[in-house]
């Protein structure tokens, strides 16, 4: 095997966070989202992350693309991110365009609203995927040819759907209990498909950067680029592919600039080139260049989250399940209202982050610090969401839409 390629894939997302939407707002104030200029509002978060992550990382990616002709990146960028960046950090959108314009940055398809609609409403899911593809085309002039579902939530159904929708590749977690002895460093074929490839995240090497990089309690801290380069080469000593998938905000936000994560990444990309035959692929290129070695079946949904790799962070407790079932129960009434603002507000509530903020499992482990949320507690997150649902019901009612 002469060539080994890294698929370096970053996920870019910001949700429309809810404000402290009170029971006293229901039926009188329909503004659910935190859009004032207060600290913690959507605008404030966008400004902060743009400064710490989007601007410096895009500059670094551009520099690396200019310097190394075979360096390639894949990005998924949610609709809710693009809406907010267009409003509050338009230069960030411009810098993403510059990356895409190099022709070596692929945009991966997904749901516009970063939702779990696949598990609740196929109609809504497909609508959100189409809406996302249209937005990506409008903003970047390209059309996605590969797909990732929210939180890499994948099962066999999704693999089949991706093939039927014409995608060349779909992304998932390379989870041991699914792969068994098999390695994530090869492309696979989703069970029951013929024309789509399944690219699986190498979570060990991905999480070394995404989660462990600045952890001083980690035996490998501080991680040097030569060490990491050696690991990457070892992982691909007889395999063709290294899938490094992570949140974009790893760079500068989850791992702050002062941890040296930018310098580390730049050095690593340089080192990777030193070995002959080492290259990069975008997601779709990897699918085109490499023949799947085996079929992989995931009857149960697997995600890239937590040690369980399931959806329990989103749907694990009764508040989360109730919130989502209330939300999707309103779908047909909302759609029949014909009220565009109402439909838009409903869709922004499908963003999975809302359910994530209601997660209590870390509370029960006594590990409150593992928990990331703009709210005081998961219970508060539920209260604001529930109040928004009640207001949505009220709005569908005044439209006279009682039943789809």
């Amino acid at each position, binding site marked *: 095997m002469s060539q080994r390629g890294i698929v370096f894939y970053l996920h870019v997302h910001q949700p429309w966070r809810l404000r402290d939407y009170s029971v*006293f707002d229901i039926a009188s104030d329909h503004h659910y989202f935190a859009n004032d200029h207060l600290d913690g509002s959507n605008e404030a978060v966008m400004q902060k992350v743009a400064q710490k992550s989007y601007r410096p990382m895009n500059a670094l990616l551009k520099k690396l693309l200019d310097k190394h002709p075979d360096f390639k990146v894949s990005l998924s960028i949610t609709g809710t991110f693009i809406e907010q960046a267009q409003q509050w950090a338009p230069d960030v959108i411009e810098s993403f365009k510059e990356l895409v314009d190099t022709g070596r940055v692929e945009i991966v398809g997904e749901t516009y609203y970063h939702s779990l609609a696949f598990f609740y409403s196929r109609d809504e899911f497909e609508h959100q995927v189409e809406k996302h593809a249209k937005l990506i085309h409008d903003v970047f002039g390209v059309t996605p040819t590969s797909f990732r579902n929210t939180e890499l939530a994948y099962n066999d159904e999704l693999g089949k759907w991706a093939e039927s929708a014409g995608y060349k590749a779909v992304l998932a977690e390379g989870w041991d209990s699914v792969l068994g002895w098999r390695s994530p460093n090869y492309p696979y074929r989703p069970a029951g498909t013929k024309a789509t490839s399944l690219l699986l995240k190498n979570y060990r090497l991905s999480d070394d950067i995404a989660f462990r990089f600045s952890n001083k309690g980690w035996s490998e801290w501080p991680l040097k680029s030569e060490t990491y380069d050696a690991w990457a080469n070892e992982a691909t000593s007889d395999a063709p592919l290294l899938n490094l998938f992570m949140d974009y905000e790893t760079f500068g936000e989850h791992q702050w600039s002062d941890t040296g994560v930018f310098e580390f990444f730049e050095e690593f990309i340089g080192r990777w080139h030193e070995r002959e035959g080492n290259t990069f692929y975008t997601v779709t290129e990897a699918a085109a260049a490499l023949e799947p070695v085996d079929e992989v079946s995931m009857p149960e949904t697997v995600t890239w989250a937590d040690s369980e790799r399931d959806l329990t962070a989103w749907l694990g407790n009764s*508040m989360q399940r*109730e919130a989502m079932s209330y939300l999707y129960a309103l779908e047909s009434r909302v759609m029949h209202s014909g009220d565009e603002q109402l439909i838009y507000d409903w869709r922004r509530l499908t963003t999975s982050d809302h359910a994530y903020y209601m997660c209590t499992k870390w509370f029960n482990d006594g590990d409150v610090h593992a928990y990331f949320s703009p709210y005081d*507690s998961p219970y508060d997150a539920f209260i604001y969401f529930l109040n928004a649902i009640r207001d949505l019901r009220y709005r569908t009612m005044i439209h006279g839409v009682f039943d789809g």
Partner: protein
Amino acid sequence: MKLLMLGWELPPHNSGGLGVACYHMAKALAAKGTDIDFVVPYSAGHKEIDFMTIHSTSRRIPGGKYSLGAYDHMSIDGMRKAQKQYVRHVEKIIQANPKKHEVIHAHDWLTVEAGIRAKELTGAPLIVHIHATEFDRAGGTRGNPLVHEIEEQGLLMADKIIAVSNITKWMIVKRYQIPANKIEVVHNAIDVSSMPEVNQDIETYRYLRWLQDDGYTVVSAVTRFTIQKGLLQLLRGFAKATTRYDKLVLLLVGDGEQRDELIRASAELEIADKVFFTGFVRGRKWRDAYGLSDVFVMSSISEPFGLTALEAAHHSNALIISKQSGVGEVLANILRYDFWDERKLADQIVAVASSSALRDELRNNIGREYARLNWRDVAQSCIQLYDGLRRGVAA
């Protein structure tokens, strides 16, 4: 380890949380091999206590049934008299056995004079354990200047201070200018085995039970009716909640100088038919109030700890706790609000009443959480402090 512990009350002769905390702390310390002389200012039998020696400093009969509070039932003059007697008796205990005690552990301003005197006589290090400051008792004002002065004296003379929460620690730092590194936070705990049984008598609150069967949610507070507890704000928040959700009742368990004011306020807010006053209750009526309640609110303006919240958790209540209450520092599965934020409180009451998912998650999760707080850990923290101080003294 031989300990002189200076307290003011022990169950069943207690009027509040201080006696409960002292009892469990001493019991857990004794279980770890500590030899304790425990001093109380009254004479009464403590038949169940065989793990330490109890010394009485007077022949007074304990208890005042009017009040749930630890020490607000006595006039300051009566209190001063009792305290002076207490000091004299502690002197006698020490004179009888001058070299015995290695550490002196004094609880609250009530016993700090005796603690200081004991330190003088024995040379042993003094720990002052603060369960409540005069600022807490006075609802944020300076309170009684004499009490304040005695308290301050104790904080200055202590070799180490134990505060029952971070709230209390920072109160001591800010209001008394005590260096933060002199203060250790040791949160109180709960002894699940000593809690009353959860199963309840449905007859105790028959009418409320009937309302509950009809879909009403019972919100409760079990407390002393005094300004520190934020009950007027609770009433107003509850009244706001009823404008959005009708099937709510508020059960106010306890008594105190604010009672009449609260009754008047509930009428002025036009919610009098939804507010139930039980008066001071003990035993089954007390237990069944928790058992009946769906949602327990701790509305305190200033609450060093707040043991009743753990009792409510034991009875599977969903907890709404003001951010000014120390117990909130050790619990994750609760709703929090600022005591003055009546709108937020109303929001939380409506949400818990109207969503069974929220209510069940809160109840189930707090049920798993509260029992982790145990007195063994409290005793361990105390012993570490004792050992540290003794090493310091030896050096």
